[in-house]
């Protein structure tokens, strides 16, 4: 279980003004503001919100990449630092080396995570994600879709209990996006997923949380959230998103 309690992340940012000067006036900016959340084991939790809402910041804090200004995250009642090996993180199609082959990438990360029988694990993931024919190619020759799949394979290499997926289908054509979603759906893991695609969140998530300006403004099942719009027919999550995040 993932527990998030009173989580706040504040940045000190310089105010923009004309020209260049040292010691510009500064202000505080809350990227996350008092987030409280519990995600159950095996649950797929979708995080939705406009650009700059704090979705990636929250993912980075849960993964241990960023420290919160206040509050805490615990996984199975332990601080994140103690359970880093249980977490798989995918930030779009980054975090993979383009200058080596797909296989070398997966082998490297498998060894970092002490994966036993890594060869069979790589084979298994390559088959699962349709990467078999590409593993011996340099990643720089991959299409965006293939890079995303490799990034997903990298996140899955150590068979983590918890998967943090930040925009896993960003920039993918519909065929590959559908394929990646299908793969995510097949995994029986605790997943936190951020996306801008409402149908993706709708299809994949057991519950959805709406983040806006660093605040978690609504949490519920896709069905519950659609109720917000009333009893009108053909309500989509996009309608709910626009209503909740209207400035």
């Amino acid at each position: 279980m993932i527990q998030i309690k009173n989580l706040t992340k504040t940045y000190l940012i310089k105010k923009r003004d004309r020209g260049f000067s040292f010691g510009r006036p500064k202000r505080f900016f809350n990227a996350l503001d008092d987030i409280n959340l519990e995600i159950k084991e095996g649950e797929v939790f979708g995080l939705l919100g406009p650009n700059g809402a704090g979705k990636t910041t929250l993912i980075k804090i849960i993964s241990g990449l960023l420290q919160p200004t206040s509050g805490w995250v615990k996984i199975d009642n332990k601080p994140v630092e103690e359970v880093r090996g249980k977490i798989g993180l995918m930030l779009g199609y980054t975090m993979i080396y383009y200058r080596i082959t797909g296989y070398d990438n997966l082998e490297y990360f498998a060894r970092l995570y002490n994966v036993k029988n890594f060869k069979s694990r790589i084979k298994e993931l390559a088959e699962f994600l349709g990467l078999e024919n590409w593993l011996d190619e340099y990643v720089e020759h991959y299409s965006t879709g293939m890079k995303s799949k490799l990034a997903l394979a990298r996140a899955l290499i150590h068979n983590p209990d918890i998967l943090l997926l930040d925009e896993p289908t960003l920039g993918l054509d519909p065929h590959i996006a559908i394929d990646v979603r299908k793969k995510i759906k097949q995994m029986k893991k605790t997943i936190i997923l951020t996306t801008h695609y409402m149908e993706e969140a709708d299809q994949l998530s057991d519950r959805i949380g709406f983040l806006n300006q660093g605040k978690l403004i609504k949490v519920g099942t896709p069905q519950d959230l659609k109720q917000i719009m009333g009893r009108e027919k053909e309500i989509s999550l996009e309608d709910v998103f626009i209503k909740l995040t209207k400035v």
Partner: protein
Amino acid sequence: MNVTQIFAIAKKEIKLNFRFKWNYFGDAILQPLRFVILFSVVYSGFFLSGAKEIGGITQTNFISFLILGSLVHTFFSFGFNIFKTKFINEKYWQTILSFLVAPVHRLKLVIGIGLSELPRLGIILVIFLGIAYLITPIAFAKLLLVILIIFLAFLGTLGVSLIIGAFSLANEDTLFAFSYIYWGWTFLSCLYYPLSSLPRFLHLAVRINPIYHCIEFIRELWLGLSGTTAVHLCFIIPFAILAPVIGVYLFNKIIKKIGITGY
């Protein structure tokens, strides 16, 4: 210690470096030659003008003196700058995050990266020690001791480099300062000239510099120049042990406190 992770880091780094191998090897082989050629011209000028000896350097040993200095300089230079270059690359490739989230002790990174430099540093080591051996042969045990001392100094330098690497991730504004620290440190290491050629007020700074003790010890072993072995070891061994440990501690502190900025 689980060495699998260390070898995984080294193997991945070597593969990344071999993607553009001419650049990888070319720089390493040509860089040390610059200083040997430059200072050979200077010392030749001294001896041709009638000088017999400069701080223990004579007409017969100055080539070995410079080659040994250049060898230590190469290890020092690559060690000092490696994490700065590496982390800047990894920051913009957005791959550094994948390492930071992995459950790997940072000390393994230091050793793994050190190992990954061996293909090119090994070539320099063999060529330079080979030339020095042909000019001034020494006992095999001494040769092994020289190699050990070079690697100890390299390990210590990698620890310092990790701190600089943390700054390259956290705040690139500080990096220019490290270029000057590198320059000053090299200057105070007496790699190409004897201590006596520096002004007296700098001698204390030189004498607390572990790289100076490394090269002095090597020259003692190789050229029979006078010195105190125990004093040299008192600087080299703690440097090799403490610098990586302090480097790892500060790296974790800096990354935790500031995080990664600028991409």
